[in-house]
């Protein structure tokens, strides 16, 4: 179906039935499901194959039972327990049940999974995935060497190409246009020309990925600035569970570049400076394959108690030296290369310095199991969908299990595609308000013309540093207040910025400034959610409230923005709580 385009006042207007924002795994999976019967468009700030899904290494969970006995119910249990019981269990059931088909879909689309000797998809172990409710690690992760995410991203893009999906690449969506509480479209900035585009659509899917860049040490890409999440927030949509940010245990020390959990899945061992396999003390049953929050905390604890390695005793070691070089080459080629390239360490013979790195946002835009966005605990915003890391369904609860995110983007990406088409088929277009692009134009103009003293990079650096210092693995009321104060100070200083590039074409200087605005918003929400959750659960560890408190906090947090968006005062936020959906599993103490 041909796309309708008109140009007016230098603004280009496009009209679609289904518009997808973001061309990562979730966005493209949605696009494939949405198909080409209706008029479907994908807008992405990056060329699709540059999305950060491509960085995922380890694998994608699915109880295929190709190599060991397994079933979706065990997978559900692991997901719920891994998420420290904050998982919505109806969503987790869907995730686990639909995982098998999700993997088969990808294989049928051409994904080159590693194979078992009899030609089936091979599977390996991954943290937190167990047989029969925690008895022993199970091989559940389907993988393509250690570039599973790369292969997913490529395969999805290939199939989009095959179907002739309509892409708008290097278009930055900067605003969601709502009319009377209903979504009418989005406004985007074209990087190459500096032109403004208004996309009108019946269904809009946000699949814009995470926001690891609120932290300094992170496995996330420079471009993961949480645009979609912040845009939704600015338009009055609450954000769910923002205090749950996952720190992945094995980031390359000092750099944050990720070494996949697959390294431990294949037998890698964490050691402290004394050479001790310290995870035996923290998780006697599954040791190094405990969920990420536990491992990250154990590592941070080892360092804190003086058992770290290196000149500043500030990291621990990942030991692969007992593995056959052939196994390393076949199963972990990329990550060993990272160690060589970036730290000059030879993994065959030397231990790799590692430390937790900000990795994954469990929280985000609240959705239900149809990927529909919610405006409060249960009110659906018709026509608005979210999937992938930017969304919170919530299948990851307080802590995501490794390989469950690639699964999430496929299962809920697919669902978003499916339900958005269903909706668009019968819905009528919400009329575009007059001057739909006015806010974006004003924002861009303001940044471009700003003549202040503050430098974007400096503010961003201070933000990331304060988040690393005060809102990382360990948190207290005091550090969180310090972080909040700092974020609010930065927000004030943000009013006084200037940029150097005044051009229209490829003005990345301008976009970095706008992205910083998104980061500030999300950092603030994160800190507030962290402060309000006065317990420890999953990835969220409060040193002043070290116990899990099911009586008061067996609920999702919902942070709402109050008042008008232009007033970036920072205090206009309200916290609410939303019950957790429990079906089969009552909260228990989490031991491994």
């Amino acid at each position, binding site marked *: 179906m041909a796309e309708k385009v008109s140009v007016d006042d230098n603004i280009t207007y496009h009209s679609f039935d289904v518009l997808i924002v973001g061309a990562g795994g979730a966005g493209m999976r949605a696009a494939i499901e949405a198909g080409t019967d209706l008029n479907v468009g994908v807008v992405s700030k*990056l*060329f699709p*194959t*540059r*999305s*950060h899904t*491509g*960085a995922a290494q380890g694998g994608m969970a699915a109880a295929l039972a190709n190599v060991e006995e397994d079933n979706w119910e065990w997978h559900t249990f692991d997901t719920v327990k891994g998420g420290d019981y904050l998982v919505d269990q109806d969503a987790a059931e869907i995730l686990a049940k639909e995982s098998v088909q999700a993997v088969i879909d990808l*294989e*049928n*689309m*051409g994904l*080159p*999974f*590693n*194979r*078992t*000797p*009899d*030609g*089936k*998809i091979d599977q390996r172990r991954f943290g937190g995935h167990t047989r029969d409710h925690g008895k022993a690690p199970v091989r559940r992760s389907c993988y*393509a*060497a250690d*570039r599973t995410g*790369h292969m997913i991203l*490529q395969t999805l893009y*290939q*199939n989009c*190409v*095959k179907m002739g999906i309509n892409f708008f690449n290097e278009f930055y969506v900067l605003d969601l246009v709502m009319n009377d509480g209903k979504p009418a479209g989005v406004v985007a900035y074209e990087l190459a020309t500096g032109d403004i585009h208004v996309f009108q659509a019946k269904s809009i899917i946000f699949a814009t990925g995470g926001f690891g860049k609120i932290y300094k040490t992170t496995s996330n*890409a*420079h471009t993961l600035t949480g645009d979609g999440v912040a845009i939704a927030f600015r338009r009055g949509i609450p954000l769910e569970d923002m205090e749950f940010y996952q720190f992945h245990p094995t980031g390359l020390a*000092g*750099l944050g*570049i990720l070494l996949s959990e697959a390294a431990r899945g294949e037998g890698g061992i964490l050691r402290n400076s004394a050479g001790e396999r310290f995870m035996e003390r923290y998780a006697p049953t599954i040791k190094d394959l405990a969920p990420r929050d536990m491992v990250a905390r154990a590592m941070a604890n080892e360092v804190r108690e003086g058992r770290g390695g*290196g*000149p500043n005793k*500030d*990291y621990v070691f990942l030991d692969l030296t007992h593995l056959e070089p052939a196994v390393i080459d076949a199963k972990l080629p990329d990550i060993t*290369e990272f160690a060589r*390239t*970036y*730290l000059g360490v030879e993994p065959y013979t030397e231990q790799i310095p590692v*430390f937790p790195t900000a990795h994954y946002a469990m929280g985000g835009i609240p959705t239900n199991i149809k990927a529909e966005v919610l405006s409060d605990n249960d009110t659906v915003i018709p026509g608005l969908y979210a999937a992938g890391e930017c969304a919170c369904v919530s299948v990851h609860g307080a802590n995501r299990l490794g390989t469950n995110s690639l699964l999430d983007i496929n299962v809920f990406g697919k669902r978003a595609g499916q339900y958005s088409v269903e909706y668009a088929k019968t819905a009528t277009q919400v009329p575009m308000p007059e001057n739909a692009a006015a806010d974006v134009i004003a924002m861009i103009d303001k940044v471009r013309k700003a003549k202040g003293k503050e*430098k974007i*990079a*400096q503010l961003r650096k201070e933000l990331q540093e304060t988040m*690393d210092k005060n809102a990382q*693995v*360990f948190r207290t009321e005091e550090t969180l207040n310090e972080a909040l104060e700092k974020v609010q100070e930065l927000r004030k200083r943000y009013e006084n910025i200037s*940029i*150097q*590039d005044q*051009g*229209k*074409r*490829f*003005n*990345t200087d301008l976009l970095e400034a706008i992205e910083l605005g998104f980061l500030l918003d999300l950092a603030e929400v994160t800190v507030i959610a962290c402060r309000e959750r006065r317990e420890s659960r999953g990835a969220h560890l409060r040193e002043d409230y070290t116990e899990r408190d099911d009586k008061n906090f067996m609920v999702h947090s919902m942070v709402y923005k109050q008042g008008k968006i232009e007033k970036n005062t920072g205090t206009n936020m309200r916290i609410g709580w939303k019950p957790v959906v429990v079906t089969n599993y009552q909260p228990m103490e989490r031991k491994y």
Partner: protein
Amino acid sequence: MAELSVPTIESFTVTLIVRRFDPENDTEPKWEDFDVEMYGTDRVLDALHKIKWEQDGSLTFRRSCAHGVCGSDAMRINGRNRLACKTLIKDLDISKPIYVEPIKGLPVEKDLIVDMTPFYKAYLEINPFLVATDKPKKERLQSPEERARYDDTTKCILCAACTSSCPVFWTDGQYFGPAAIVNAHRFIFDSRDENAELRLDILNDKEGVWRCRTTFNCTEACPRGIEVTKAIAEVKQAILRGRA
């Protein structure tokens, strides 16, 4: 958390000479030099960021993942195509300035950004997707050996380092280029694919594999270590023999 540190080399000052072009003001590109203070584990991308963030915000380049997996930042560093995020400063000769310029053979848009359209176009022309008509209920079977047959070429991140290092591609930009052939190879040798013949036919073109003069620049430039020239040779052989 406390600041992290890895055993580092002392900081040192390096000079970067960057080939710049501002489409709104320049008629032709110019060289501009910057001095930056760097550390041992820093990469060229860090140096470019340092320039952009501290000295000249208008310096423009693409980047995303910062560890060599997204393929955004292929550029010519000291005369060779490299990913800026994978090139450690200490591995270059820092007693001399480091030359940084856009990849060659694609139209320059601004500073280090080139127009990738011709590159993607060649990629799209080889039908870069699995074609299989059977409708299996579960996964299609494939032995580990069959899977290994095309493993190397699945690594491609479409960074264009290879194609824009190819002297044949520079001449007129018409040659399909190594990246397109690599991606065709990935499917031609996939036992599940049924479209090898068509792809071989597409590459048996005036601008196809026969234009490759085995100069190996592509293989040498590929940040993923793909044996590009070998893949091209295999495609040539497949065309000669009439099948993969």
